[in-house]
């Protein structure tokens, strides 16, 4: 008794389909890293480079001469709240790399004693915020 033979074309189609399914499964998840890890600099947004699998802000003259916030640190001095201390600039990481303009003008003294000067709030070329405001004169 002879067993029925499948046509070669059918076998080839079945193998081809299996290969396609396997490839799709492989692409979908198996053994792949998550999208959070970068393998190329172009995996990161503009102005960032891939370092050790993570995107970090590029430190270049365009981005700032100073400590432009790769880690998102703020650079300006903490604003003082005492009557004798001017309010300092406050910059975010985004602002530190964004601006090519001048830093904010230092705040001028307040009109009354005990009021801190307002601080510059825009980021400077070097990523530093505007200088601290002068204390208001009593």
């Amino acid at each position, binding site marked *: 008794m002879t067993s029925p033979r499948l046509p070669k074309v059918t076998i080839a189609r079945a193998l081809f389909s299996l290969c396609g399914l396997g490839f799709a499964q492989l692409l979908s998840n198996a053994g792949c890293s998550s999208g959070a890890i970068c393998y190329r600099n172009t995996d990161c947004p503009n102005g960032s480079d891939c*370092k050790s*699998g993570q995107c970090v802000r590029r430190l270049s003259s365009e981005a700032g001469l100073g400590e432009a916030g790769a880690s998102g640190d703020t650079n300006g001095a903490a604003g003082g709240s005492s009557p004798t201390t001017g309010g300092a600039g406050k910059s975010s990481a985004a602002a530190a790399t964004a601006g090519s303009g001048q830093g904010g003008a230092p705040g001028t003294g307040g009109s009354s004693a005990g009021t801190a000067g307002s601080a510059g709030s825009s980021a400077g070329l070097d990523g530093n915020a505007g200088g601290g405001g002068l204390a208001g004169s009593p």
Partner: protein
Amino acid sequence: MSPVSNVRTSPKIALMRGGVSISALLGAMFLASPVRADGYLLDGNFGLGSGLEGGDTGTGKFGWRRARLHITTGVDLRDDESQADALGFRAFAEIEKRATLGGEIRYERWLSHNVGAYAGLIGVVTPETLFGGSVGADLVIPFGKRAGLFLEPSFSVLPVGSDLPSSGPLVWLLFSAGIKLGL
């Protein structure tokens, strides 16, 4: 008189015959259009591809992930006297994340009209650079006389370029499919 003496030609007639022959020969040589002995057959391609991308993130650990989607287009030039050999030119774009633009030049060897293999140089040129080599195979499923569906698995190693965060190469294991047209 003998008949031989009757067919004997005078030098004048012989000279005229020689002149006519030479002028006819020269005319045939210079007025004939050149023969196209080395023509090329042109095939156009357009396809999509993706697969696996492997690389070193800078930590010394080699990892894999899904490769970006590639859009590829190009031409194959085949010598009409030796259709097994071909030269292929491709331009491709990766359209996920930050889009890139690249190209490839490859030598193709067709084992039959529908099955071939190739090796070549591949590179990304903008916005960062990436260069290396690639090998692959082509399978064409014909649709009609001039069109076909091509399936192309390929393997590329790209060790050089500003797109690499570390000294390790980037590896592409891609599968592309698309339309091939005889132009």
